[in-house]
């Protein structure tokens, strides 16, 4: 059971609580309450459907940030065999906001990269909440160039509120580090698959997000700016984040329609945080299918397709 504190999850949480109480009672009294539990299970399912079948963009913003939602480390740990983590940019330092290394995914050697928000308070602080510094982008690039040298595809997991906005990040060239990644990723001579698993925060996300295929979890969001910022700019207050979330078109289904992403991965009913195992399994399946398709494409054709994919974005909307 997750206590996410989300208002629209209240009915779900109530049923989950009742079911747990009944289960405890049943074992305590050694009585069979299975028919009562079954009835409640049905109502729980209904409540989940009611809450989750039609989440508003703002509700997705909230769901995408639930702390219990699986993070990059969950996917990497479950999907990568013989994992070897590598550190540092060989210039300045390591950035623990991004995990990177070598692994074997379903028989295919890959280089993986994942923005890691951290799973508890201590880890969140240590990982700077997944906000990367320039050394993180340069570490990512170093590992991608390693992948290219040895012909290994790259898998990236995007989950960040954005690039770190502090003074040191500026002094070490945050903008230049991101720009160089975009340029290099556009021409990297191996397949790249990117999966947006939680929050895709603007340029900070894109810095490891240029890919042949961009997949996105159903309730993940990817936005040019936070809805709160948009609310401040448009309405000059923080009260309109709900409208802003709608206007920005930041949900997976909207981005699929706009041609920004290639595929939406369905989450378990009630969100990824209710069943991390099933979520990871589905991501693995989508990854395998997309990677397989990309590995069969000739290198020059792959690069041409990648260039054209980005070349076309926004062009149709011009007059």
């Amino acid at each position, binding site marked *: 059971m997750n206590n996410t504190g989300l208002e629209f999850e209240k009915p779900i949480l109530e049923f989950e609580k009742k079911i747990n109480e009944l289960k405890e009672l049943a074992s305590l009294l050694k009585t069979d309450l299975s028919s009562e539990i079954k009835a409640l299970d049905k109502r729980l399912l209904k409540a989940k459907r009611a809450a989750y079948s039609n989440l508003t963009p703002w509700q997705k913003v909230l769901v995408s940030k639930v702390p219990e939602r699986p993070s990059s480390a969950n996917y990497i740990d479950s999907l990568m065999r013989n994992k070897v983590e590598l550190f540092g940019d060989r210039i300045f330092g390591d950035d623990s906001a991004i995990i990177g290394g070598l692994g074997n995914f379903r028989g295919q050697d890959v280089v993986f990269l994942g923005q890691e928000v951290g799973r508890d308070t201590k880890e969140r602080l240590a990982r700077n909440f997944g906000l990367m510094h320039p050394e993180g982008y340069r570490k990512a690039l170093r590992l991608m160039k390693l992948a290219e040298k040895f012909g290994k595809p790259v898998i990236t997991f995007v989950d960040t509120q954005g690039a770190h*906005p502090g003074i040191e*990040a500026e002094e070490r060239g945050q903008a230049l580090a991101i720009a160089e990644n975009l340029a290099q990723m*556009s021409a990297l001579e191996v397949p790249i698959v990117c999966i947006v698993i939680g929050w895709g925060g603007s340029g900070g996300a*894109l810095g490891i997000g240029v890919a042949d295929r961009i997949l996105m979890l159903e309730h993940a969001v*990817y936005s*040019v700016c936070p809805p709160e910022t948009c609310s401040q700019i448009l309405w000059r207050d923080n009260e309109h984040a709900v409208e802003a979330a709608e206007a*920005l078109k930041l949900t997976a289904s909207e981005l699929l329609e706009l041609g920004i992403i290639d595929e939406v991965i369905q989450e378990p009913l009630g969100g990824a945080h209710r069943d991390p195992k099933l979520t990871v399994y589905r991501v693995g399946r989508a990854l395998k299918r997309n990677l397989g398709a990309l590995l069969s494409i000739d290198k020059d054709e792959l690069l041409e397709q990648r260039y054209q994919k980005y070349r076309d*974005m926004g062009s149709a909307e*011009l*007059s």
Partner: protein
Amino acid sequence: MANTENTVQKTECPVCKEAFSKEELAQTHKVCPKCNYHYPMGVQERIKLIIDSGTFVQYDEDMESTNPLNFPQYKEKLAKDRELTGLKESVVTGEGLIDGLPAVIGVTDYRFRMGSMGAVLGEKITKCIELAMEKRLPVVIFSSSGGGARMQEGMLSLMQMAKTSAACMKLRKAGLLYLDVLSYRSFAGVMASFAGLGDIIIAEPGTRIGFTGERGRASINQKLPEGFQKAEFMIERGMIDMIVQRKDMKAVLADLLDFFSQVEPK
């Protein structure tokens, strides 16, 4: 901001507060004669200053945004900026001669949606780079962009960062020169894409350069060091190649174009 003195309109310098007339500022190409503050410069003035008279041919002059997300208040804002600037969008591209040397040119204008990048800016910059490759010409881009990816076009704007960067990468592989000139402001999605990818990065004095602007930094609550994000601060940290006075810009660009034209592979 405007004082009347003998009926001559004078503008007060935002830095040293000394007032100068429009004519005086025109003579110095909008640089404060007293403190060297470089006023922001619009596209038309920039082209006049840099490109040989009568040689500029504009590309895609009429390309306009169609408000792809139906974003609230966006059409009105575009209309206002079009009227203010006489431009259709925040960027002008084309080709012309710089002291007799041909180049493809892009100029963004801070007055139009803060020089932010939507689908039009991304498309025009990408297309001008592609044309430069076709014609085997060097590229010179002037960025004055306080805004990054334009909020009102959402993720379509963000993806223009990848699109323009991919074009810059192609240009790099084609062995062609990209002179990258920053003036007034260059931030966020613009600086973290094409404006951060020049072979030579030049800034006018006092230009503010970075990823996160004031709004984004508010949450961090750090005391800023002296001159933070100014060109003079960034050159000390190794982020740009040179700082060039506006009055010298054309000559410096021509020298660089000349130097690199000798080594361009056949």
